């Protein structure tokens, strides 16, 4: 079998940022009609490599070949002209604009005199949305969609024109299973058209499901390429982090259950969710599983004082409380790792240390001033614990890789030592190694007597860490499972609202 010539070849790419050598002589190639996975830990340089391809960054050294011809890509415009489309890891959307305008950003169909050809636009977007199974229209304001739907619109950009190379940078980080299926269909179609696809993800099962080859980066250097069919998770993990992991082992070792920390009764908030009741005990992890839009995030936000409940009671350690604001929630020992790290979790222009200590800054003082040493100590502790990769604590959070940003958010709330820790999609965009580390950490915390709520759209995650799982559908709790008795089928049924029998 002769292998087709690669559509794209990268040779010896080097890129440095102040204090970091993000890429150190990386080679990489993509053939037409293949799905090529790019893997590596958080901060390994995957996004950087792809941004170089897309003309966002310029390599310090190295060459890019397209169809065996050397090219220089100076800007996104040129990348586009070379037939390269990058679907960014972080959403790259104009929030106030319509879905259609966003999908065709930079290439709106024109009529004479530079007028927008709305008719063509709507037609083409309509077709694309149909392909994506979208239940929203081309004229919807994109900012009013949930993150998952926004992500789908971002993905839709791959379909606007015939590209030679499409790069998906962690497209599934905020998608649920239903949308993933759609995405994989899209990828199949592109593949059939002979488009070369680069697929970045931390989720092994996806990688093994859809990719043909896998390349691995580690600390900015190229580790090799394997055929997907000829390898397994363990080998890849070895290449990525230099050791094996015991993955997907169901946690069965329950912590000793303690006092009831939180009890929620009939909690409602308008149309967002209704009549939610449950309890969480010290030492227990309760997983909330559901489809996007099930209202889990809103429930968590209500517990954290960010929304005013329209009905119901919240009890902390048996005592009824009213939580009017996040600062009151924090006082009462609640922490929330929010869903959207960029908007809700981090001050991107602040350094790593300051972000981590932000909620407790009032307690870290020496006289009137912030105690520098205490702060750095906290940072160091969580940097080690969560393996945060940052040059120094002075590095601005905005220049960290996506996964490392997420770790900063987690570290920030763990360091509060809360009674009740709520984590919303805690491992979104986190590499396998750190993910299992975080899961381990959550278990450890439960053992130490924390009460923990995990909201997640990833079934393995929920299954892996929870003592109990609560399924939500459409703003209501449909069923509660204990970790020992849950099956994947039941769970799927419960979150899609197919069964209405409420188990206690």
């Amino acid at each position, binding site marked *: 079998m002769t292998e087709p010539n690669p559509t794209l070849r990268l040779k010896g790419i080097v890129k440095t940022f102040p204090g970091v050598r993000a890429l150190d002589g990386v080679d990489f190639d993509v053939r037409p009609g293949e799905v090529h996975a790019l893997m590596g830990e958080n901060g390994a340089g995957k996004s950087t490599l792809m941004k170089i391809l897309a003309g966002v960054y310029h390599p310090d050294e190295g060459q890019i070949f397209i169809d065996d011809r050397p090219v220089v890509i100076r800007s996104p415009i040129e990348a586009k002209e070379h037939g390269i489309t990058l679907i960014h890891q972080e959403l790259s959307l104009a929030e106030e604009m319509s879905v259609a305008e966003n999908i065709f950003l930079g290439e709106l169909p024109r009529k004479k005199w530079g007028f927008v050809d709305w008719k063509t636009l709507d037609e083409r977007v309509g077709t694309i949305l149909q392909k994506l199974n979208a239940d929203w229209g081309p004229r919807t304001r994109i900012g009013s969609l949930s993150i998952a739907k926004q992500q789908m619109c971002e993905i839709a950009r791959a379909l606007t024109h015939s590209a030679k190379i499409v790069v998906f940078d962690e497209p599934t980080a905020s998608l649920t299973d239903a949308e993933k299926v759609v995405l994989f269909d899209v990828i199949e179609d592109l593949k059939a058209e002979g488009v070369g696809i680069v697929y970045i993800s931390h989720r092994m099962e996806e990688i093994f499901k859809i990719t043909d080859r896998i390349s691995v980066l580690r600390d900015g250097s190229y580790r090799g390429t394997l055929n997907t069919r000829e390898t397994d998770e363990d080998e890849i993990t070895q290449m990525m982090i230099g050791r094996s992991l015991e993955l997907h082992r169901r946690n069965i070792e329950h912590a000793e259950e303690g006092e009831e920390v939180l009890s929620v009764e009939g909690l409602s908030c308008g149309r967002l969710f209704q009549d939610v009741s449950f309890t969480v005990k010290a030492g227990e992890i309760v997983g909330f599983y559901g489809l996007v839009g099930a209202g889990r995030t809103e429930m968590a936000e209500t517990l954290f004082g960010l929304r005013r409940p329209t009905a119901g009671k919240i009890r902390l350690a048996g005592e009824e409380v009213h939580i009017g*604001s996040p600062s009151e929630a924090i006082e009462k020992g609640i922490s929330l790792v929010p869903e959207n790290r960029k908007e*809700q979790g981090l*001050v*991107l222009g*602040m350094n790593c240390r*300051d972000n981590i200590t*932000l909620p407790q800054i009032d307690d870290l003082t020496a006289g009137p001033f912030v105690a520098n040493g205490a702060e750095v100590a906290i940072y160091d502790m969580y940097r080690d614990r969560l393996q945060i990769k940052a040059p120094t604590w002075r590095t601005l959070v905005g220049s960290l890789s996506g996964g490392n940003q997420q770790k900063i958010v987690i570290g920030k709330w763990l360091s509060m030592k809360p009674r009740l820790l709520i984590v919303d999609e805690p491992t979104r965009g986190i590499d396998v190694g750190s993910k299992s580390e975080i899961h381990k950490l959550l278990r450890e915390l439960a053992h130490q007597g924390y009460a923990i709520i995990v909201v997640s759209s990833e079934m393995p995650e929920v299954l892996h860490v929870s003592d109990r799982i609560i399924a939500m559908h459409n703003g209501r709790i449909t069923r509660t499972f204990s970790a020992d008795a849950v099956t994947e089928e039941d769970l799927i049924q419960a979150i899609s609202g197919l069964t209405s029998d409420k188990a206690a």
Partner: protein
Amino acid sequence: MAALVGRLGNGDLKGLIARNGIFIAFVVFMIAFGIGVDRFLTFQNLENVVKTTAIIGVIALGVTVVVLSGNLDLSVGSMLSFGTVMVVDLHDKIGPGAGILVMMIAVLALGAVNGLLIGFLRLNSLIVTLGMLSAIQGLTLIYSGGKNVDIDPSTQDTTWFRVFGRGEIAGVDMPIIIFFALAVVIGMIVAYTPYGRRVYAVGGNPTAAVFSGIRRNRVVFSTYLVSAFCVGIASIILGSRVMGSQNTVGQGYELLVLAGVILGGTSLLGGSGSILKTVIGVLILGFIQNGLLLLGYPFFAQWIVTWVVIILAVWLDVAAKRGRLLSPIA
């Protein structure tokens, strides 16, 4: 510049330059003027410039805090007119001490109105403070009946009120001392206290700040009190320096102050910048004005040169930060 930064190679030195672009601009500028302008680098002149810059400088300190938290304050100019007219007018009526007290309370009350509207009602800071600019100007005129106010000439040389604008300690002019002392205090607060951290957080990402348990409303409210406080202090200096006031004395200060703040490198979007840089920013402005006056350029030539120098200075600053001369905008 870009080539220079590129060749240095040493990461630390690069970082140092990147963080201090505006200082370098300042030094370059001072040397150039020192060589080109007679008497520019004399002690008397330097002292004069810093002294006269102190009024804008003190206000800029407060406005920096507001800008850091992601808002604007355009009402400082007319608030300065208000404060100065009031403190000068009250000097003869109820005495300097009580006058200062009443004026400070009044100015802080105006700041509180800004703060309530912007912090708690979440109204757009540009329009609110622009509205306040107009309203306070009106209030000042109503208060004074549109007339100039003066401190009784017979007491001008004897009142202790003269200390703030005309006094000196150990040979250093009082306005300079007040300016630098206040800069140190506010600079420390902003850089090293939990309060300062909250201001940066609110400016950098208000949503994330709230999610971190920061009471955003209060922080924003408080920044307007700080700003008003600084305007009050500036009013005292100005009143004491001139021993009189006009209703329009502060007109146009809002933009000058903002120019100084931004020139220093504080981002209009909030969340980044520092008091020290603001001090440098206003000093650059002050020295430009002074240098060009010493050169005896006609006023319009001064304006044109100021245009060029401001843009060059800020350009140098942002270019140092990003490590290349031209912007990455395609």
